[in-house]
Every structure is written in structure tokens, then in C-alpha cells.
């Protein structure tokens, strides 16, 4: 079972991963976006980790909801409301349960991913974070490792796609051949989740 402390460690691990990969995310974003994805997510998840270290909510739902709200208020780019909605919706779905199992977490994250789709109006194949998140939450019912692989595979699979949402969509055909930064950072979330779960 996974409790509030687990969720805090997950968010802290995401903050570490985003900090480590910020340069790469920004590089990917400079090819098809506005070159701020790494810096924006680093600002957001650093703020999340700091807030959670100071005042950790007791339940995993409380942790994810607080993290989501923090991202919305600190990021400053589209990734803020998108990741914020993912975590906030997942947190609300978990409710006040003191601990959840992997299947429960998978269901909550699936609700979060659905909310991201509604917010941005994107679907799988549009070259967005959903291309990593959607297969990852589906595979999470199997194992943490499967979720991580599915997310990484989903992110790599965005390379030949043409962007249909966000700034990258203005590039049309020229967005083909680049890995989507949002799908790449989404894979970091699931890599961190596996790390913390298997630790």
C-alpha cells in the first residue's frame, strides 16, 4: 500500500529528475516549442517539493492535490495547468484514503489523464504528453516497471508524429522528427514513480 509519505517521496523524486533533465527538456522544446519547458517544470516541481517538505498532507490524495495546485500557481507555461490538472484530479479521485494500492493509484491517475485530455482538447497521436501518459496509466495496472516502459516508449513514439496541439502545431510538417517535450517529461514522472516504489 502507498501512503502520503510515499506520494511525497514520489513528488520529490520527480523534482530531482526534472532538475537533472531540465536542459534536455528545454533543448527538445527549443526545436518545436518556446524553449521554456525544462525551466518551467523545474520551477514548478521545485516549489512542489519545497511545499510538501514543509507541510506534507497526510494522505496520498492530499499530497497529489496540493502538488497539482502548486504547479498551476507556479509554472507560468502550459505545463503548469496540464500537470497541475493531472495531479489535482488524481488527488481528488483518491479522496481521503490514508493509503492506496497500485490499482487504486492507476485508476486515480487515469482520471487525471482524462481531465488533461478535456482541458487541452488533445487525444493520443496529437504529439502531446497524452502519448506517454495514456499508455503509462494503462500499464500501471500491471506493474510500475511496465508503466515506466510504456511512458518512455510512448514518448519515443512521438518523434514521427505531426503536432496537432499547442505551439508546435503551428510548425505543421516541421514538427515531425522531434520528440515531444511534454511526453518526455511525462515519462520522467513514471520513471520516478517506479524508482520510489521499488526503493
Amino acid at each position, binding site marked *: 500500500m502507498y501512503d502520503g509519505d510515499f506520494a511525497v517521496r514520489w513528488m520529490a523524486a520527480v523534482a530531482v529528475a526534472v532538475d537533472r533533465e531540465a536542459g534536455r527538456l528545454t533543448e527538445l522544446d527549443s526545436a518545436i516549442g518556446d524553449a*521554456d519547458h525544462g525551466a*518551467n517544470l523545474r520551477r514548478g516541481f521545485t516549489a512542489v517539493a519545497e511545499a510538501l517538505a514543509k507541510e506534507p498532507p497526510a494522505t496520498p490524495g492530499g499530497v497529489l492535490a496540493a502538488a497539482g*495546485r502548486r504547479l*498551476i*500557481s*507556479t509554472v*507560468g*507555461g*502550459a*505545463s*503548469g*495547468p*496540464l500537470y*497541475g*490538472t493531472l495531479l*489535482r484530479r488524481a488527488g481528488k479521485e483518491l479522496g481521503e484514503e490514508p493509503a492506496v494500492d497500485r490499482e487504486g493509484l492507476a485508476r486515480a491517475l487515469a482520471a487525471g489523464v482524462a481531465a488533461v485530455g478535456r*482541458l*487541452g482538447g488533445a487525444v493520443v497521436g496529437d504529439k502531446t504528453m497524452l502519448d506517454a501518459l495514456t499508455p503509462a496509466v494503462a500499464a500501471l495496472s500491471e506493474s510500475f516497471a511496465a508503466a515506466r516502459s510504456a511512458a518512455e516508449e510512448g514518448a519515443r513514439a512521438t518523434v514521427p508524429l505531426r503536432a496537432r496541439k*499547442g*505551439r508546435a502545431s503551428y510548425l505543421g510538417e516541421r514538427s515531425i522528427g522531434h520528440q515531444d517535450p511534454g511526453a518526455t517529461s511525462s515519462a520522467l514522472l513514471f520513471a520516478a514513480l517506479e524508482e520510489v516504489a521499488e526503493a
Partner: protein
Amino acid sequence: MSGDTGGKRVGIVLVSHSADVASAVAELARGLAGGGDLAPVAAAGGLPGGGLGTSAELIAGAARAVDTGAGVALLVDLGSAVLTVKALLAEDDELPEGARLVDAPFVEGAVAALVTASAGGDLDAVASAASEAYAYRKE
């Protein structure tokens, strides 16, 4: 004018990635809305420390500043401005009651919204006036 707001007027928030764009469009709308007593309009542009981006904090602050109880119309430029306002509206307590994202062209919609709100139009009237600005073709 449809809808009686009981003397209170709809507030307008202009959200842009750029502080300069948001404040200049607010100024333009005030100038084009004519003289007299205008409805409250506030700019929420860029990031709090400067730079391009969307700030939930500035948006929420601007919405509170123009809220007189008749509702708040939020007009946005693109991308994260749209998504941030939608994400804030999905929470119960982030924006004043009666806050609404208005689907409108930013500049033309701002002028239409301010004219309508200043004339005492309710939130529905302000929102439809701003949205109708899409229908004005330029060629």
C-alpha cells in the same frame, strides 16, 4: 441592454503572456469605450517577476480587483493563458464567484466586453458581445 445587474458592473480581466500586451489592450479598450464611467478592467500579463508567461497569481489578483459581485469576464490570448484560466475555474475557490472564461478575440473582444459592461450589461451580455467580435471579418 439585457439583464439587470443592479447597478453593479461586470469586471473584465485581460490575460496575456505579455504584461505589455495586457496593459496596452486594457488601455486601448478604455480609450475606445469612450468617456464616462467605465466598468472595471484589469490586466494580468506575463509573470510576476517580468518575462513572458501566464501567472495564476496575477490572474486571481486581477479577478478579485475587478469583482463587484456582477461576475468577471476573463479574456485570454493563447496557449497557457487559456489552460491556466480553465484550470483555475475548475477549482471552487481560486477565482471569484461568477468568473467566466470568454471565448473571444483578444483585442476586439476586450473592446466589445468593456463597452457592454460599462453600459450595464450582465455577464451573458458581456460574453456574447465579446464572442460576436469573431464574426467581424476584415476582408
